[in-house]
């Protein structure tokens, strides 16, 4: 069952573009990565699905319900961690979490305790006294305390130190194992690569590619680095080769095509070193933005 269905969703802020004709589905239980640079429309998409803003045209459904009509019902089972966290400055952490919990049915005392201990969050400090990273932790606990079925994470790791990031990722994986669907928006590709099953790439308001994270890496490009005496970049001037660069006497390039042909071509050289590897998501990603 699709947890999120987005079809031809479009949002204009007056005349300026938010997103244009975006369509995708997120299936139950998956971690869906949503990648794009700042201003590509990641937050706009999430805010549309949370009914914080209203679509210009198109349709968004969460749990099979139209987001413009069933907002409160949908949000009962949603957790949201915004990219920038802001809470009532005068409140204490524990009071804010209790206030947040009061909107959901059930007793969450144990869960709040568990999550805040895990994230090393001090409960009796005032929100206004917290550093950015600590506010982010409040956001994480607040987003997870009611055990939502769907999590929206909008650039969740900014402000967290590496140790906390790892704890956070473990927590997300743990939630995911319990069946929680995760919509993970980020411009840091490494973390998406580590966490997600599928990714959607958004650029200037439009979806460029939706693909399995493995096939995105496999079907595409090989990163090849060759070092040989008297080698010039022109040697690799054949179809399928892109991004040729010379660095410290070695030639680096991306190759897409029959790998045998390339290996044969390279075997004619008197090699000092050769390296063929999977490109990182980062490098694939740069390719989409050229």
């Amino acid at each position, binding site marked *: 069952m699709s947890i999120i269905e987005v079809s031809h969703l479009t949002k204009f802020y007056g005349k300026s573009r938010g997103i244009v004709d975006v369509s995708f589905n997120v299936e139950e239980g998956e971690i869906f990565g949503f990648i794009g640079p700042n201003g590509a429309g990641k937050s*706009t998409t999430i805010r549309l699905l949370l009914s*914080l*803003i209203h679509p210009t045209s198109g349709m968004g459904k969460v749990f099979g319900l139209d987001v413009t009509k069933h907002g409160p019902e949908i*949000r*009962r089972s949603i957790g*949201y961690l*915004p990219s920038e966290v*802001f809470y009532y400055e005068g409140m204490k952490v524990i009071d804010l979490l209790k*206030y947040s919990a009061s*909107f959901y049915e059930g007793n969450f005392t144990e869960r709040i305790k568990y999550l805040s201990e895990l994230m090393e969050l001090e409960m009796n400090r005032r929100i206004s006294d917290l550093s950015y990273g600590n506010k982010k932790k409040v956001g994480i606990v607040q987003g997870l305390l009611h055990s939502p079925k769907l999590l929206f994470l909008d650039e969740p790791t900014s402000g967290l130190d590496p140790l906390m990031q790892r704890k956070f990722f473990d927590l997300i994986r743990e939630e995911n194992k319990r069946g929680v669907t995760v919509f993970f928006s980020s411009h840091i590709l490494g973390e998406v690569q580590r966490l997600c099953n599928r990714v959607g790439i958004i650029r200037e308001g439009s979806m460029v590619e939706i693909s399995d994270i493995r096939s995105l890496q496999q079907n595409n490009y090989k990163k090849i680095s060759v070092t040989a005496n008297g080698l010039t970049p022109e040697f690799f001037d054949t179809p399928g080769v892109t991004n040729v660069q010379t660095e410290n006497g070695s030639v680096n390039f991306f190759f897409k095509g029959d790998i045998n042909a390339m290996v044969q071509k390279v075997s004619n050289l008197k090699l000092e070193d050769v390296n063929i590897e999977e490109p990182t998501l980062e490098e694939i990603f740069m390719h989409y933005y050229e």
Partner: protein
Amino acid sequence: MNKMIFQHEFLIRIKSVITWSLSVSALLFVFFSFFSVFAVQAEMMQQMLEKFPKELLIAFGMNEMNYDTVLGYISFYFLFIQLLLAIQAGNYGFGLVSIEETEMTADFLLTRPVSRAKILTSKLMAALASMLLTDVVMWISMFTAISIFSEGKEYDLSTLLLLLFSVILFQLFFFSVGLMVSLLVKRVRSVTPYSLGLAFGAYVLSAFSGVFGDVKLEYITPFKHFEPTYIVNNGALNTPLVLINVAITVIALVAGYWLYLHRDIHAVS
């Protein structure tokens, strides 16, 4: 209505309510403490005022007053209490949803499983409770001041009650107009300039309405709708003007709901 939002909203405003209640009461006591002086020298005062330009007296609503009666004296300074209440109500109206947006907490509140209509109703009720609390303190202060300073002079209780209760409708006007305007502009950066502008603007309109007698500015300013001297001199509200006031309030509230339900909550930029 959501009880938690109501409670949260009410508590967030409680300091402000205490400050306003004390200020209004202090003003009321200070003014009333001069009552005996005015009452004794009413004759002299009247003579002095006759030398003032008539337009000036009209502008301050001082042309039809009896300073030596309790209600006459109250109607003379009630305007200033109204002015304070107007600023307070404007503050709450302009700030009701805009503060949440400038401080970026709107994202938190609006991603809870509550409809926007419910959120607005809860916020509205909390603000009304806050204003009503200020009124109750003001009413108690009024009766206390009368018992201390009136020197046992008689006054018509029902007229006084009418004047005191009229502030509720008076405040609602500034509150709802403030709310509507805050939703019409793109972003309210600071609430105070707006509420001061609205309150003093309405007051100036009322003053000028008196100066140019034939200009019908009284239709749009609550300071005319609930003019203290009119209420005291007639022992009744100026019904047509009050109806206009209520109509504007209702329209502003309905517009406020509509705008809020259709509003885009923008991300931090």
